[in-house]
């Protein structure tokens, strides 16, 4: 076998939540039987944004905040690839917030994993948009990306997990991966992934999570009710986890690629292939 890059050992601090997230991605890829060479892991910039080096698939390190448009570009250009985008809460919710909103709206076939630790780990501990009491404006409420996801009508898969509950995390990761692989659209999974160095929230979060998967009354297929319930839980200072929403909506691929020739293989790109079309286009300009 051709030698390729040596899978890097994670460079995270001992105890960092990101280890668990990486484990779940690896679990899901394996459980779904997806080959590494058919997988592209795109990551943002941050501590979280090194996960792509540790998996053995194709990896891409996006610019800070841009992992989602890049991942959508990949997913449209080569629908055969398994596309996993990953990044931190700073990457995804601060500088990348606008793209998140639009990615959720587009519903492209990809899995997006946010490692939410409430801080900017790599730049040494500034508050992220999910920080509990931001230094600058302590009365600002943290952003809840699941609520945001619910507010956008074309979302099809929204889930939150915590690294301390790895079974649930693994299961949700696998479901999300399959959702995207099956062409049902974008799976968005936020993982509570504490930063032990700059804001160790393990015990705080473990005490606050509320598992919707374990609540028989919760309906993850009803957007309005889901929002209502989440809002109530948040008002009680709880953090809802589990499969928050699961619905159906045309994916970006189904909307954009339904009638077109795939064009991702090199062989398709030879001159002459589309000459007739080009001649027609050109003729419209003929004098």
């Amino acid at each position: 076998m051709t030698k390729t890059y040596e899978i890097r050992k994670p460079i995270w601090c001992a105890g960092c939540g990101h280890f668990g997230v990486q484990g779940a991605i690896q679990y899901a890829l394996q459980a779904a039987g997806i080959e590494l060479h058919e997988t592209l892991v795109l990551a943002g910039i941050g501590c979280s944004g090194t996960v792509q080096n540790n998996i053995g698939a194709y990896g891409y390190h996006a610019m800070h905040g841009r992992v989602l448009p890049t991942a959508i570009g990949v997913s449209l250009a080569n629908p055969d690839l398994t596309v996993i985008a990953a990044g931190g809460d700073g990457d995804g919710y601060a500088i990348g917030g606008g793209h998140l909103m639009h990615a959720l709206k587009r519903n492209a076939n990809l899995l997006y994993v946010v490692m939410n630790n409430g801080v900017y780990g790599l730049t040494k501990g500034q508050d992220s948009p999910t920080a509990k009491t931001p230094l600058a404006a302590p009365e600002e409420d943290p952003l809840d990306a699941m609520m945001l996801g619910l507010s956008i009508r074309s979302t099809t898969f929204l889930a939150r997990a915590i690294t301390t509950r790895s079974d649930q995390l693994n299961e949700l990761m696998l479901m999300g991966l399959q959702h995207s692989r099956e062409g049902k659209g974008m799976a968005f999974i936020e993982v509570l992934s504490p930063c032990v160095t700059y804001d160790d929230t393990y015990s705080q979060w473990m005490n606050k999570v509320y598992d919707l998967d374990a609540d028989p009354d919760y309906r993850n297929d009803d957007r309005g009710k889901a929002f209502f319930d989440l809002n109530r839980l948040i008002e009680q200072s709880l953090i809802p986890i589990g499969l928050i929403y699961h619905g159906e909506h045309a994916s970006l691929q189904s909307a954009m690629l339904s009638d077109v020739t795939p064009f991702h293989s090199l062989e398709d790109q030879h001159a002459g292939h589309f000459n007739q079309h080009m001649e027609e286009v050109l003729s419209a300009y003929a004098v």
Partner: protein
Amino acid sequence: MKPAIYDISAAVDKDLLRAEVRDDLTVMVAGQGGDGSLTIIALLSKALLHRGYHIYRTSDIASRIKGGHAAALMRASTKPRGNLGDQIDILIAFDLEAVQKASNRLAPNSIVIFDSSREAMPPDLVPETALMIPVPFSRLSVRDLRRDLFKNSLGFGLLGRIIGLADKEVESCLRKHFKKLSSAQLEPNIKALREGQAFADKAGISGRNSILTLPAQAVENERIFISGNHAAAMGFMAAGGRFFAGYPITPATDVMNFLERNLPAVGGVVMQAEDELASINLVIGAALTGVRAMTASSGPGIALMLESIGHCGSAEIPIVIIDCQRAGPSTGMPTKPEQSDINMVTRGGNGDYPHIVLTPGDPEECFYGSILATNIAQRAQCPVILALDAVCHDNFTVPRFDLERARIYPGKRVTESDVAQMEEYRRYAITEDGISPWAVPGTRDAMNLVTGNERNEWGLVTTEPDMRVAMVDKRSRKIETVRPLLPKAVEWGDVNSPLGILGVGILGGVMTEAAERLAEQGLHFHCHRPRTLWPVLEDTIDFVNSHERVYVVEQSEGAQLAGLLKSEGARADKIVSILKYDGLQFSTAELVATIVEKERLA
């Protein structure tokens, strides 16, 4: 149709109806946005294209919504000319502002058709020797619901008579132009056309007794009439381009429009992104898979893309970017031309990153240049920028593009079977030519990492000094590798003259004509138009340094082109800058006068 309405026109002096032959004619039609100026010029262009003329068509519109003042201009000539004539030969003015705007450019013997139902014409706006033809467009048009269409057709009918087109010719032109209209919709237009002709009859202007005439010209080669934006978009497709993402912005939106219409049919994808950052990163995503991908924008949007452009330079991702330059800085004057993004596109991003910038001079060069850009991006695995100026929106007559010349060079791509032969595969292998073999995601056993951090050959992040230097040097080498493929400058004029004129893009046309006229005055110039902006090619530096004095003509207050040349070795004492930044195009007369004056003082 009440004949009464024709009473308004007065007969034209018989002496003028001599069907004077013209081989060069500049026409302007202007009024409020809804007046249909652009349509009349489009119709006239078509008619004269059929007669075998070279057409250059441009417009001068306000960047504001429907409405606002809009002028359309056209030049028909027997020689190809990429610019307007110095003077306007015929003006159709739907309002006073139109006359004011044209005023100092009207030829002494110009023909001015103006809307006599609006304000009175103040004195001194029009040369005394001009022929004035008052037409009560507005009064006539109230009779018709589709006011602008009506004005179009009426104006075109009259114009056809004035320049000696046959009524049949004119009507067929109109029918073709409106071929998408139902016959019920078309009917009033034909009626309006006839009214225009009847109006001419009344004024004594008939097929034989026209004022001007532009005899049919023999045409040797097939020609097309196209803008730089459309040509560049077409070139991208022809070179295998299959993914486009963009965000609307004047004057680049047209590229997206063109591709939205034409790319999906061959399996391509066009996406309107939420902003420019998304556009270029969508493009990067597509490019990562090996698909040829492009975006287009203008100054403010390109500025937002600079981090990403540098990233592609670093991470070795092939993308194509079109910058349709407009007058800056900031939002500036969105509908006005300029060449003032040269600094930005050549050296705007952070750090030192390899990339290539081409600057075509007409739609033909836009087409072949875009093919080259698309191929060379793959070849050098780096961003290639096409910097367009007014050429992006202006229409030119050019030889029909030869699709056979469009080749798709895959570059150093490696397939699964290639990889199977290799002991190890390193995405960023240090190679002699600076280009690393590239296996795209999906290729078995070739897994690799792509990053904008500095990295080792496998794509793993490193700051090890030797590896860093090796990577930077490798990236520089690939530009040297492709340098011989980059388009050299076009040179013409007097090779023996110690005096030069240098400019890029659309200025080629005005430089040509200016040099011709200067030669007539005994001032001989050697002309040079670079087509590659970055890297600056040797021939351009040599040109400057081997002449005694070189006029560098450009549309930028900051003399960006001159600065670029100097930074790459052109001698400052050789360069005399001629700058224009008032939002208008250079005219030949203006350029000639400036050079004559400067030569007098030199």
